[in-house]
């Protein structure tokens, strides 16, 4: 029983880490630009597919490094051409635009790489379990957790200790003032969008090793990521991180006792948070 519980808590943590990685990217973009990026799941899928294509040339590690960057570049280009034009307009329009993009990306990946699930090789030594009693602790899962932790740590380092991070945080609070102080807001939003998409791409590369590679891979991750943001509190990145891990673990633990409710519990948590604390766990009062 303990082992089962441990297994599911660990599983929940991994899933939660994915939710958090996705949600952090979404949250970055949402906070600074007011855009709900529906295409986030699409970018995640691109990350996975690019890694698949790159592995024969660069190897597993090279693909892991290169793929998210390429996805981020695509994101930067798309922001520059399409999304930039919608800043300052009703959020309805950016929502519809990214919605259309999500369709195009899903169909595009299907067109290029085919609809069927593709095999994805992770190095053998990573796939093996680390211990016989705790069979679920494969090297890959531990590695994923460590990598996600490192990336999130790095993200918060960037946000708290670099000029870019300072500007992003300031822009989240009051973009107009930041602009008045001489920061090029267009570039800032562009870079910020790229950063958010980088996280989606990274989540994609890691997720395919676990969930398999198909065009709809992002679909199951995007809704919980929205919920992670709502639970954690809009406008707060630590909140988003906590929200993602929390709903991941909650659904993992629930699956021990009531497997059919393992996803429903996420929505129940969201409803509970909205009743008790509409701004989310770590959200600021009066922001929305």
């Amino acid at each position, binding site marked *: 029983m303990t082992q089962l519980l441990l297994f599911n808590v660990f599983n929940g943590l991994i899933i939660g880490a994915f939710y958090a990685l996705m949600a952090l990217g979404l949250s970055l973009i949402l906070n600074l630009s007011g855009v709900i990026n529906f295409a986030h799941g699409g970018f995640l899928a691109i990350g996975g597919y690019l890694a698949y294509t790159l592995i024969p040339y660069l190897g597993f590690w090279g693909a892991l490094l290169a793929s998210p960057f390429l996805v981020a570049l695509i994101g930067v280009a798309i922001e520059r051409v399409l999304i930039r034009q919608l800043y300052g307009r009703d959020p309805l329009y950016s*929502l*519809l635009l990214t919605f259309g993009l999500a369709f*195009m990306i899903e169909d595009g990946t299907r067109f290029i790489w085919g609809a069927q699930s593709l095999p994805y090789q992770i190095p053998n030594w990573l796939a093996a379990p680390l211990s016989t009693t705790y069979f679920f602790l494969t090297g890959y899962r531990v590695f994923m957790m460590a990598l996600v932790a490192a990336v999130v740590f790095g993200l918060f380092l960037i946000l708290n200790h670099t000029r870019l991070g300072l500007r992003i945080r300031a822009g989240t609070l009051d973009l107009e003032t930041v602009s008045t102080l001489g920061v090029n807001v267009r570039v800032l939003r562009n870079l910020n969008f790229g950063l958010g998409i980088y996280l989606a791409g990274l989540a994609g590369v890691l997720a395919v090793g676990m969930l398999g590679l198909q065009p709809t891979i992002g679909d199951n991750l995007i809704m919980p990521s929205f919920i992670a943001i709502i639970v954690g509190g809009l406008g707060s990145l630590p909140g988003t991180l906590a929200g993602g891990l929390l709903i991941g673990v909650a659904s993992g633990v629930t699956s021990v006792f009531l497997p059919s409710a393992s996803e429903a519990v996420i929505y129940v948590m969201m409803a509970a948070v909205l009743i008790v604390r509409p701004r989310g766990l770590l959200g600021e009062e009066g922001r929305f």
Partner: protein
Amino acid sequence: MPAMNRRAADILIWFLLLAAPWWLPPAGSYIELGTHVVVYALAAMALNFLLGFTGVLSFGHAAYFGLGAYGTAMTIKYLYPSTPLGMLVGIVVATAAAAIIGPLIVRLRGVYFAMCTIAFGQVFYFIAFQWRSATGGDDGVSAWRRMPLDLGVVQIDILNSPKAFYFFVLAVFAVCAAAMAFLLRSPFGRTLLAIRENERRARFLGIPVDRHIWLSWVVSCFFVSVAGALFALMNNFVDPRALRWDQSGNFVIMAVLGGMRSFWGPLIGAAIFLVLQDYISSHTENWMSFIGLFFVLIVLFFPRGVLGLVRRRSAS
């Protein structure tokens, strides 16, 4: 003479709708597409009650559309084979769900509201998908049919005659459209417009804004569930795709495409969208890309919609 123009437009639209079974086939189409357009038009107009006339963006209306559809289908299949009873159950269930979820989200605004409607909408998709024994999961609720209407004196065979079913759908649509028009002209509707134009001022005037948004939300979900019930009857089938988030997106794009600020806009948007979808999906496998591209193009070049464009042209 905008009042007269509007009267003329109303007459033209009703004439086209009433005569559809006769002009659709010669125009190279079929009656079922007309039924499809009317059902989606009702859904998009219901959404627009909230989006265009209250200024609140819901991206989760598919949930209530789908609840109406599932309620209708499951009642006819399991409880009692009666079309009106099925519709009634579907509509009541969906409206009740909307009324319960409403208070949780009406305090939120803008993007946050949209995001919460998306997330709550997904709950019902998830239930329909998981609860296999009742909803058939991914396969949907099948093996049932809409029943002929029994009015006591006459029986209307809406099952086997597409024309009769079209007029049945159109009759429901007409009642709903009239009810929405009436609501929008009433003091309640004017209050909603006031909230849309300037929420803060409305609040200062002593209008209970949250309660009005809740009411508008429930009214909007009520009408969208009517459309959902008709949707189930139209297909004699319902599956989880009826309540997935891309369905919500379709309603929104229809409203935007036609023109959010006009009463008939969503009808025109629905007609254009569905005809285009029908055409594209019969010509290419990659119809999703084209629909996606369509979304992007509308947002970039056509944000005011067809009627918005017409109005601006006639104003200048």
